[in-house]
């Protein structure tokens, strides 16, 4: 990999937030690599970009995804049955990179990364064109010896999470150690679409604490968002929002039917722009 390529990969997320206009919200969409099929993922990502996505979170499927609800568990099982490995995932990123510079953050669990080799993983992910890594089962402490050295060496920042029960000190620790953005978990729980009212009511005071303590990085909020209305309400005080389970549910609803991708992309557009 050339020096230019390294520089380029470091900057995609930072560039996105630097160029963000005023109150505009960043829409980060989560898709499980290999769901509904490994051959479709790159095309879906490119379609998301055309229909309003600013950032992609690419899920690396794992057999035991303990921070995820039933929807993402399901998509992970499908992807694993279809034989998805690290090489498949890096292949998807390379394919997207032929046509697009949309920032891609990898999200997954530590065990397959350990098995692949931590150093090799960061090297190959950076070379393929990934821009960051979210590992929900590796907090800052374990990460400091396990992931951080390789992350710094290969210029692939680590993105940590804050939750409603995180203390102020904890939020500051996460902020200091994150690169790209901080992932704000809207509710105590696992991933999954929730009823709009519940999710909107609970976040107010929490967001104020996040804003006070997370000062070095942009903040994206996720968990439970399933409509434009949710997104607008919940992300009004932060830099953007993340949608995952609702997107996968929408694929499940349409997949296999005629022109299903068009209908799916309509949904994606509606998440960003309403209607």
């Amino acid at each position, binding site marked *: 990999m050339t020096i230019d390529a390294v520089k380029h990969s470091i900057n995609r997320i930072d560039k996105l937030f630097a160029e963000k206009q005023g109150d505009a919200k960043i829409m980060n969409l989560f898709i499980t690599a290999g769901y509904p099929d490994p051959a479709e993922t790159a095309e879906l990502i490119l379609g998301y970009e055309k229909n309003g996505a600013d950032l992609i979170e690419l899920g690396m499927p*794992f057999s035991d995804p303990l921070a995820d609800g039933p929807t993402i*568990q399901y998509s992970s099982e499908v992807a694993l049955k279809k034989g998805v490995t690290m090489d498949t995932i890096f292949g998807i990123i390379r394919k997207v990179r032929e046509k697009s510079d949309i920032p891609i953050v990898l999200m997954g669990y530590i065990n397959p990364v350990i*098995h692949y080799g931590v150093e090799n993983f960061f090297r190959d992910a950076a070379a393929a064109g990934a821009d960051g890594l979210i590992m929900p089962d590796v907090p800052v402490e374990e990460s400091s010896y396990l992931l951080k*050295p390789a992350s710094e060496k290969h210029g692939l920042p680590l993105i*940590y999470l804050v939750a409603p*029960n*995180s203390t102020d000190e904890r939020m500051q620790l996460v902020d200091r150690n994150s690169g790209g953005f901080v992932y704000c978990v809207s509710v*105590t729980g696992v991933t999954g679409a929730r009823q709009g009212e519940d999710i909107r009511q609970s976040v107010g005071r929490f967001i104020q604490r996040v804003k006070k303590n997370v000062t070095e990085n942009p903040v994206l909020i996720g968990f439970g968002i399933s409509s434009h209305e949710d997104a607008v309400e919940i992300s009004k005080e932060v830099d953007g929002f993340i949608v995952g389970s609702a997107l996968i549910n929408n694929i499940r609803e349409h997949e296999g039917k005629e022109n299903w991708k068009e209908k799916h992309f309509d949904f994606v557009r509606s998440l960003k722009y309403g209607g």
Partner: protein
Amino acid sequence: MSDLNIIPQTRKTYDWPSQAGYYGKFGGKFVPEILIPALDELEKAYKEAWQDEVFQKTRMDHLHNYVGRVTPLTFAERLTEHYGKGKIYLKREDLCHTGAHKINNTIGQVLLAMRMGKKKIIAETGAGQHGVATATVCARFGLECIVYMGAEDIERQKLNVDRMRLLGAEVRSVTSGSQTLKDATNEAIRHWVTHVEDTFYIIGSAVGPHPYPQMVRDFQAIIGEETKTQLQDIEGRLPDYVIACVGGGSNAIGIFYPFINDEQVKLIGTEAAGLGAESDKTAATFAKGGTGVLHGSMSYLLQTDSGQVTLAHSISAGLDYPGVGPEHSHLFDTGRVQYVPVTDKEAMDAVKLTSNLEGIIPAIETGHAMAWLEKLMPKTKKDDLIVINFSGRGDKDMGTISDYFFS
């Protein structure tokens, strides 16, 4: 893994875990951020409780007057005769209330939960033994209890499901993934993540994120402490061998731990090899697995070439788990404990032999420890003392035993 950065592991005496919850390079807290405050709270409460005389006195009172401790150290006279040398002793955890060592831990954790003001208890269970032990203490102390159990295990262990229900627990069927213990544990963790404010998760083995492996070990260490005193009274010395079966490893760490600094005592953990440690139908984590992270800690586990966790197989439901406690992984790497594989057949033969010669029906888990005598005894000296942790009674396994021997 060659490229893992390892936390420094030079120690003069055995005082693991480290401040950060590591045993050498194993252990840690590999959990979602939401659980970090809960684990910090638990760690603090546990350390305080462990130093508190009132807590310890209460715990010992329940262990004596409810669980039925001190459990006997039985001289296995006819087994000893059968092998022709040495002296075989059985530490009788099968005589604990509910029929196995599991309750030593659930008593400790439930007292801690109450001390922390948590009124809702959750647990995971495979065969149902830990679920029953948890439901039992929840009934005793009047706490709400939810037990997660794989749908397939519910089918296989109907009697234990009904025992838990009779004790007032709600048994929740887990239909995700493999529908067994591994996925029941995932689901219990997800429940905890969602209800972390008012819920205490009682983990049943020496696994999970720090401080669980330490806590479970400390609550089970009474097995080894009693053994040490009892053998001193009877024989006036330490044993030469201590043998225990290892699934997650709670009964094994419970009897090993008080002997770890006595270097002349050889410690042997028997893991379930299923149809053979080299086959695909095995639970032999050390013989076949590699380093990885499952259910909150770094340890050994069974996995595919791409790091997906695979299903374990053992005729014994209690050993049918693809991981193992982090402290065992450390003891394996340092060589302090020798871990050996025992097949389904070897274990079942030992169940029969022990029943015939001693009039005690072991749990099939315990059969895995008894089976190692076949390999060990020919190599022992005339006066060697061998202690086996007789972790549970076999009544719960009569269905499997009937199918195996009598149908």
